[in-house]
């Protein structure tokens, strides 16, 4: 017992890391199947997409990169899957992060977009547009003035889908997937200037910021980190990486709470002992 306490005292960090690893790894290998409750914010996004009609245009912006892919990429795939199930809905993918087009192409491959829909008729990938908010403003004001070609160099004029899409007025919804302030760009440039409905898929740390906009009715919904993605996977009945990870996340949260209680109990005991 003394030896164990000695190990804990000297290597407590490593012990915590090991416990955390186990709490995450075990449910990933042997899933428990804990229920995934659906939040209002997720339902907001789902209902909006569910309500899209043939001919509506959905712009899917992203700043996904290696650093945030674990949180946002599962959301991105779930949303694209849902959009591609809707007949006649036109999807425009655009990146305002340098790595975004790579992840967009990977996601399109994962949902077999090129096999089930026609490129240029049902969806278009515009690629990365440099210039941060100026790029989003340009895209909302006049797409053709900003871009002449798509991600793979095909002229926009040759893509039938883009014939009647010129400004943000032609976008029915915008969904942006990001970890940084660039979600604000779409609010500033598409929602404020053209009244386009905007929703977000965000990393957990950005969620409290976005709640202010959600509560004020400025955005129609938020997908919150991996849990938002898991909820969406459940809603569209396509369980994937996120739904699988929710058991692990719940167990890790329990571990955190247990550690908080334990550490405080130890602290109080030692403090009383000293007294």
């Amino acid at each position: 017992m003394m030896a164990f306490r000695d190990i804990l005292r000297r290597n407590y960090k490593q012990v915590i890391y090991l416990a955390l690893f186990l709490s995450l790894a075990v449910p990933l290998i042997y899933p428990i199947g804990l229920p995934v409750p659906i939040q209002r914010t997720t339902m907001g996004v789902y209902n909006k997409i569910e309500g899209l009609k043939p001919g509506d245009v959905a712009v899917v912006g992203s700043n996904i990169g290696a650093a945030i892919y674990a949180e946002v990429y599962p959301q991105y795939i779930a949303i694209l899957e849902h959009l591609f199930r809707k007949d006649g809905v036109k999807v425009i993918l655009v990146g305002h992060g340098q790595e975004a087009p790579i992840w967009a192409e990977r996601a399109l491959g994962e949902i077999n977009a090129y096999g089930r829909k026609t490129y240029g008729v049902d969806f278009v990938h515009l690629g990365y547009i440099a210039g941060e908010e100026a790029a989003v403003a340009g895209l909302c004001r006049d797409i053709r003035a900003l871009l002449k070609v798509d991600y793979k160099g095909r002229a926009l004029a040759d893509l039938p889908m883009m014939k009647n899409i010129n400004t943000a007025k032609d976008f029915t919804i915008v969904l942006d997937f990001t970890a940084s302030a660039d979600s604000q760009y779409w609010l500033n440039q598409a929602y404020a200037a053209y009244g386009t409905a905007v929703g977000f898929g965000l990393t957990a740390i950005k969620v409290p910021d976005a709640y202010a906009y959600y509560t004020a009715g400025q955005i129609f919904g938020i997908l919150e980190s991996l849990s938002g993605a898991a909820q969406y996977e459940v809603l569209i009945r396509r369980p994937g990486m996120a739904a699988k990870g929710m058991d692990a996340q719940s167990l890790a949260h329990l571990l955190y709470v247990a550690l908080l209680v334990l550490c405080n109990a130890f602290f109080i005991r030692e403090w009383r002992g000293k007294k």
Partner: protein
Amino acid sequence: MMDPATMLSLLISTTLILAIYTILYRENPAFRIGEHLVVGATVGHAVVLAVFQIRDLAWRKVESGIATGNIAGIAYIIPMLLGVFLYFQFASKYRFLARVSIALMLAVGLALSIRGLIFVNVIGQIQGALAPLTGIDRIAYLIGVVCALLYFVYERRASRAAGPLPKIGRYVLMLTMGAYFANTIMGRLSIVIGTLTSLFVDPAWYLIPVAFLIICADAFIRRKGSKSEKAG
């Protein structure tokens, strides 16, 4: 059956992920190699993309402008020059040139965002707070906004007149920060889960026990070394 190229890339990525995670044990050369490779690859990718962007968005337009005599195309030389000016930040004699570019960037950024920012962050938020009080969440939202704003009233008499409301505002702010912190933890965990999900695939997961064994062996050797040092 996985093709050899995919398997190789999977094994390399798994090795690098595990190398990065060894920092949880202690600082070591495997972590350093992994860290440098990640930074190098990210910077390399960013530089290549930046060069392509300059080529596609400006250089080609200047080229075609010169070829056709189109002034609008040739004018793209101006933003390119302004971009070059930014590097004069490092030369004290010509630093004023960098300031021109920075001032222009700030002005354009501000002009673009100010309209939306006011509409979204000021007018929209006030409208949101004054929306009909249809439910408990709306009432809580309104009380939270008012109390949090009152917390930042530093005029003594006004603050005193507000009674306990600024204190409630302080608790609202603390709750918000707690939500931020809890979300940060959730986000970090999601990243680890995403990484582990990519590790728990065949044949990548075979490398996990190997990494554990190496760490255990290192810990054992170090412990033995420190014991013999003490004995010596």
